[in-house]
């Protein structure tokens, strides 16, 4: 029995309890709060252990050959993402008000699925837990989304088919990797075993590139990698607040986590194979530049946030494309940072929609005068996503950029370096749309009829929690980096 098993089981059990009739709010808040504490304790313990390799491991075999087992274990990356999950889950659950139980249940299921995916070390379960979150996400968007029935269903379908098809491609890639790296005569899905085999007998780079590309397509469509992104923006814009927070903040990180935890260690040379790197760079430029422009074009807050979330994935992919230690760790930090900031923004956005009934920029204005606390909280999210130093995103971005330049020879610019320059232009674009949003909503004089006040103090807690996380880890990114001393 490992503490990680409790962490994974808690939300799922809480969901079951609510289904059976337990008081929804109390149960979900209790479970998520306890979970956050547990993860924090585990994180502290882990950093006390000199942050070395996998910890809290425990394995229960479920099939002999191919060898599958319910194996849990966490290293720095997993713990950072688990921390992100529990944080966002607590906030998401907390900000639910006066909603049917299904809101709590699906939030817990999505969060539980994400925790399972991040904390298990068997490829089978890593994959499986992610899929667990698919149905609640789908149902919540289709049933409780914010558009009219036909439109929200269409959006839910699009997202589900995309995610489903993407995860099937992913499955193919994983199966391929398992077949290649199992070694000997026995198939195994155990990540550690696969990694050992990958270091013992690495594949030729050309083959690595092929497998990596399949995995990239699979994981990529889960992370809305251009051009497989068109599900994400409408889905987030339509999804009910907790789902938008959890999916864009946490679950989407699964694809990146998979690339960093599974694809990169198994196929270390793949990203340096020219065609793979070029393809990845092209796609992530699509994310950054194309989606950046699309975001600039958006004229509703939810569209802006949803598209920006797609855009920012490009930076994390850039970290993966660079493939150096600094860049990859930066990618992890940025995953954490983006998760927290976008969850914060979506949470606030949901509240605004509930109170104002519209998010169109030309109908809003001057909210800062009426809701100062709300404004400050929003500013935290907005400036974090711009990449302002002092908030976590900056540390991640700067590490990714710097990591792309570690192998730089003066005067010789590779495609990667050019991509970094273009990506930096994306930072300018993200300032353009975020400030435009901030300007239209909070600055100026209040438009008549649209009026909102600060949330009650108890309702501020989840947002303050997220904003404080951004500030603390933004000022002290070494807190997170210490966890990853040996993770890569």
């Amino acid at each position, binding site marked *: 029995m490992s503490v990680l098993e409790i962490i994974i089981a808690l939300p799922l059990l809480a969901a079951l309890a609510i289904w059976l009739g337990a008081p929804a709010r109390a149960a979900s808040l209790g479970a998520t709060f306890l979970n956050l504490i547990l993860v924090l304790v585990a994180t502290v313990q882990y950093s006390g252990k000199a942050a070395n390799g996998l910890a809290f491991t425990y394995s229960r075999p479920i099939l002999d050959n191919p060898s599958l087992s319910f194996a849990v274990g966490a290293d720095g990356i997993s713990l950072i993402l688990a921390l992100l999950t529990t944080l966002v889950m607590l906030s998401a659950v907390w900000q639910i008000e006066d909603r049917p139980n299904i809101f709590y249940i699906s939030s817990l299921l999505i969060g539980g699925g994400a925790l399972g995916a991040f904390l298990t070390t068997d490829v089978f379960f890593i994959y499986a837990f992610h899929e667990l979150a698919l149905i609640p996400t789908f149902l919540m968007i289709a049933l409780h989304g914010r558009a009219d029935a036909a439109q929200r269903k269409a959006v839910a379908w*699009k997202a589900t*088919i*995309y995610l489903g098809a993407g995860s099937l491609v992913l499955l193919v890639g994983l199966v391929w990797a398992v077949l290649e790296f199992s070694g000997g005569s026995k198939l195994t899905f155990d990540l550690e075993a696969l990694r050992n085999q990958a270091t013992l007998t690495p594949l030729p780079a050309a083959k690595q590139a092929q497998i990596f590309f399949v995995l990239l397509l699979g994981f990529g469509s889960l992370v809305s990698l*251009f*051009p497989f*992104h*068109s*599900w994400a923006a409408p889905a987030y814009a339509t999804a009910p607040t907790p789902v938008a927070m959890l999916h864009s903040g946490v679950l989407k990180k699964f694809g990146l986590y998979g690339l960093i935890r599974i694809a990169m260690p198994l196929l270390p040379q793949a990203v340096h194979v020219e065609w793979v790197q070029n393809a990845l760079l092209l796609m992530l430029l*699509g994310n950054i530049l*194309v*989606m950046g*422009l*699309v975001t*600039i*074009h958006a004229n509703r807050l939810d569209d802006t946030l949803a598209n920006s979330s797609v855009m920012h994935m490009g930076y994390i992919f850039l970290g993966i494309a660079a493939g*150096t230690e*600094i860049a990859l*760790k*930066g990618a992890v930090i940025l995953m954490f940072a983006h998760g927290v900031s976008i969850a914060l923004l979506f949470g606030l956005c949901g509240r605004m929609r509930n109170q104002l009934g519209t998010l169109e920029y030309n109908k809003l204005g*001057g909210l*800062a*005068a009426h809701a100062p606390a709300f404004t*400050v909280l929003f500013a935290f999210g907005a*400036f974090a996503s711009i990449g*302002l*130093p*002092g908030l976590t995103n*900056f*540390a991640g971005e*700067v*590490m990714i*950029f*710097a*990591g*792309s*330049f*570690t*192998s*730089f*020879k*003066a*005067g010789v610019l590779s495609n990667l*370096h050019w991509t*970094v*320059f273009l990506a*930096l232009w994306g*930072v*300018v674009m993200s*300032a*353009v749309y975020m*400030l*435009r949003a901030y*300007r239209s909503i909070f*600055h*100026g*004089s209040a438009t008549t009829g649209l009026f909102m006040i600060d949330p009650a103090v108890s309702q501020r807690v989840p947002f303050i929690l997220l904003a404080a996380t951004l500030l603390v880890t933004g000022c*002290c*990114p*070494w807190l997170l*980096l210490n966890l990853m001393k040996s993770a890569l």
Partner: protein
Amino acid sequence: MHASIILLLPFFSALLILLGHRQLKGAAVLISVGSSIISFVACLFFLAADDDNKLLLPFIEVGQLQAGIDVLIDKQSRGMMFIVSFIGMLVHIFSLGYMKDDDAKPRFFGALSLFMFSMTGIVLAGNLIMMFIFWELVGLSSYLLIGHWYQKASAAEACKKAFLTNRIGDFGFMIGILLLFGANGGNVNLDDLATAFSSGPLRPDAPGYSAGFTTAAALCIFLGAVGKSAQFPLHVWLPDAMEGPTPVSALIHAATMVAAGVYMLVRVSFLITASPLAAEIIAGIGCVTALLAALMATQQNDIKRVLAYSTLSQLGYMVMAVGAVAMAAQHGHVPHAAEPGHPAMFHLYTHAFFKAMLFLGSGAVIYACHHEQDIWKMGGLRKHMPVTFWTFAIGTVALMGLPPLSGFWSKEAVLGAAYDSGSNILFHAGTLTAVLTSFYMTRLLIVAFLGKPRTDSAHHATEAPMVMILPLAILALFSIFSAFDILSTPLQAMKPPHVEGHQTVLFASLIALIVGAGGAIYLYRGKDKDPVSIKLFANKFYFDEIYAVIVRVCQDRLAWIVTGLERVFVDGLVARLPAAIVARLGAATRMLQGGHLQGYTFLLGGGVIAVVYLVVFVLPRLGH
């Protein structure tokens, strides 16, 4: 120790105020002002502290990337630190009066503290990444302060514009940092970089040296300064930034933050010196900015805008000095190896005092005239506000460069550097700018303070309260004496040694002073209306309009097009087309299930025949 206090005190002050200003209420103001005073006192100790670099806080430490909050303490940072904390303190005090009736006073002071924190960070920064961090943070505090009166649409737009324009500069700055980061094996400490350029992997005779790379890195870094110091062509935000409260304009948009670009350029002067081309471009940009801004200033009617363009012009001067010094260095002129007084820093230092004072003075005027800013609606203020008038006048003549006021010495140093650079254009343009400076400053003084009051508000103007006058007076003293060795040496103001043989320069600056002032007196004395009207200057060479078109075309229209393409092609090809194909196939295959038994038997029989055909007649041939 002192560095930590100076850096962290305003940080906690800002944090405390911004997060709890509604609970703190009036105490917020006290916290902020108190922290600024304590900082100043600490800074005085700091001036005498040891020269050592130390890590204050870890930030990111992974592999090659070792970016911490570490400080580089030398003459430059000490001098700059003094300017920042001193003027900062005075502006804090001035604001006590100026912002007395503002509802959002705590927010203002919180942002002010945040600015102090960020600016201190820039000054102390020991490595480029740290500098970039605080570089961005001053951008944020500037954004918050310009947008202090966010209910006004113009203020809201101005703060956005300031932030975005700075972002464009930061884009280049970051690229430059990355280039240096990559080229110097991950080390971006300023000291180490200097070593790298003099004797390390980046020295000109090192293997793999690339002049193009050095130029590119220098220009990219310079782009950061272009943004922050509002150089052409990114100068457009600074005049708009006058939408902020006037103390802010004095502190941030005249004395300190906008000078950060110059400070940073001086910090990386080893880089600029390494690239002749970059040095020329920098000097050229500075020169163009100085001249254009001076031309624009001659036709402005808003008292703060005149000062803003003047600031632009002076910043251009400083940047030109940076470039000119580097150019001179390449010609073998290393005039001050032992005493690294840099003309740009010297001008920065003197300019900080008189320009801050001018802004504060204009603030007092605006305050007295009930927020009237048009100089043609003032007039005759000399009588109503004597202290303000006299301090303003001192500032004006200091700026014009009347000997022996501080402005004269520093301007002469800058013109001297231009002269030394070997480029006639720089020198002539600098002189012309000096003429224009005298002209528009005299015009301002005459129109606003002399003559008769032209409106009621000017008529009823009264002297500002003590908290506002006191800083003015202190600054006036500094405007006069700051260039004297008695002040500038202990304050480590980097006064360059007076080099012999600059008669030309001396004459040029004196003639410029006389011509400019005389012209203005001749034209504007006793006038109620502007006798000169040059649309091109009044409309700032139409930069805002051109940029608006560029933004509309390159950004909004492009965004529109790209959004359309993304919806149609990407979504169409990746999502809708496959979906349509599958749906069509689904419908087609469904047609097979027509419900007719005969159809089914046909398909079954056909299937058998097809399978037999495949297995017996096709596959054996394929297989072998």
